């Protein structure tokens, strides 16, 4: 096996499969349960999205595919040499439709999110005192039920927000899928890493 790749079974799996096939890089059939699959010269690990960054940072995987939103939150020490173009979404601040939100310098509010680091940093840069409530999912419920004044979450089409009576106030970041590479692998396994990068760069949108 020349390289180990960490992938997520979630949102980005289909896009990754399509891209790898276009690039002529072998990709395992998603046959469900197996978490480690070898395909030619490559070994694939299927893990949770935030763990992709961890596996690659520690060099257990040489490369990985993960959304920029996750990278921003994980703050991992990895190379991010390739924007793969797919999996586009926004990381946005949203509130109940028509609700007041004091985002001025010195303002103060409570925000619910799966992205506590990104949120805390964004508010800090604006001088807004924000109390961040970390949630595991269904973040849209928090303002509806009064747990928080607003949320920071991933927005793809905006339908989920709309159905829960929320609206986007500001965009925090745009996210697409990224190919990430372990820093040591990039240098110490230069040839296979460069080959993979070259193949994917040719077809990345």
């Amino acid at each position, binding site marked *: 096996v020349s390289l180990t790749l960490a992938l997520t079974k979630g949102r980005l799996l289909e896009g990754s499969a399509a891209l790898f096939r276009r690039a002529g890089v072998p990709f395992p059939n998603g046959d469900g349960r197996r978490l480690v699959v070898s395909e030619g010269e490559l070994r694939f690990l299927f893990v949770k999205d935030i763990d992709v960054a*961890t596996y*690659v*940072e*520690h*060099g*257990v995987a040489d490369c990985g595919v993960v959304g920029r939103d996750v990278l921003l939150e994980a703050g991992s020490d*990895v*190379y*991010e*040499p390739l*924007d793969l173009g797919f999996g586009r979404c926004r990381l946005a601040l949203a509130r109940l439709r028509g609700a007041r939100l004091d985002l001025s310098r010195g303002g103060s509010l409570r925000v619910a999110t799966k992205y506590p680091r990104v949120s805390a940093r964004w508010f800090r840069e604006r001088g807004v005192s924000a109390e961040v409530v970390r949630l595991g999912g269904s973040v849209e419920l928090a303002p509806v039920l009064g747990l928080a004044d607003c949320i920071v979450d991933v927005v793809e089409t905006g339908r989920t927000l709309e159905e829960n009576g929320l609206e986007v106030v500001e965009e925090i970041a745009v996210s697409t899928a*990224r190919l990430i*590479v*372990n*820093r*040591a*692998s*990039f*240098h*110490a*396994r*230069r040839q296979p890493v*460069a080959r993979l990068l070259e193949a994917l760069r040719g077809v990345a949108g």
Partner: protein
Amino acid sequence: VSRPGLVQVPRGVQCFVGDEARRRRAIEARVLEVFRGWDYEEIIPPLYDYAEVFSDPALQTSTVSFLGRDGELLALRSDFTSLLAKIAAGRLARREPPIRLYYSGEVLRDEPLQPGRQSELYQMGLEHLGGGSRAADAELLAVAAECLERVGVADWVLAVGHVGVFGGLVGRCDLDGAGRTALRDRVDSRDPAGVRELLDGTETAAPVAAALESLTGLAGGVDTLPEALESVACSPEARAAVVELRAVVAAAAEAGLAERLVVDLSEVRGFGYYTGLVLRAYAPGLGFDLGRGGRYDGLLARFGRPLPAVGLMFGLDRLALVLERQGRVPEPDPAGPARVPARSLGAGLREARERRARGERVRFGDGGAA
């Protein structure tokens, strides 16, 4: 009644015993032997010093400080380079340069909880103070290479760069302080899309933006330096840095290290005191660098003795781990000790002393009476 948690090792520190400890000391001995072989002199620095010594921005949040009895703010050593720079400017002020020093010991960095990251780090390193820059840089690469060879790491590489390349280019960007920090972070992550995003819509000249983007992609052996020289042509400072790096790399290549060197001009993070050459050692099997170093020509001036300087250090944990992952763990010592019973205490002890005088390893008294 004792608290069960009391016998745990607290977060951030480690404990080694038996073969683990022996393996680490064997690695340390080999590295220090290389340092001595290049005529570096050992220094045993203090465990703590004035907190101000460790004021590099990269250290501030992780240095553990405390108040001394007379109200001075002190700190446990968190960086040997800063400490040795201070000593070179103080205790060794009258010593003629160049000064070559090596050390081996622990630093303490109180970092946020992360698996695999310790607070107590065992480092073996050297500092070359006040020598001719190019010769010292070239020597540093040779010493680093010899350490990795001697320790027995397989397939290692030295990634070399020069902070002046990024420094020259960022100086020509239309960005404020926060923007520059963000740009540094994106270049360090080799993220061309991120670099574009930061520079789009600013008044940064197109060739400068293109050069910064190209830094993220430049990778490869010593043959990539001509390409690097061309791509940073818009900045005389960046160009001069590449020329400087090329001279040192060419020397190391001529000395037989061509296959081991890779050029990495995106390496721009870490300590703020670096001013020139930077290097990191990597090997397959470990996702982190094994050691690192660089030139810091401004640091000694902070302590009142302006001298150019360059240094490097290896992490003992990292070397031990990469050898283990590469399956290069030496066999434990097969010969056991001579067992000397203590049935007749005085006679037994005499026998043990006699065997010791002959240089034998003895184990006295186990399993017997008395």
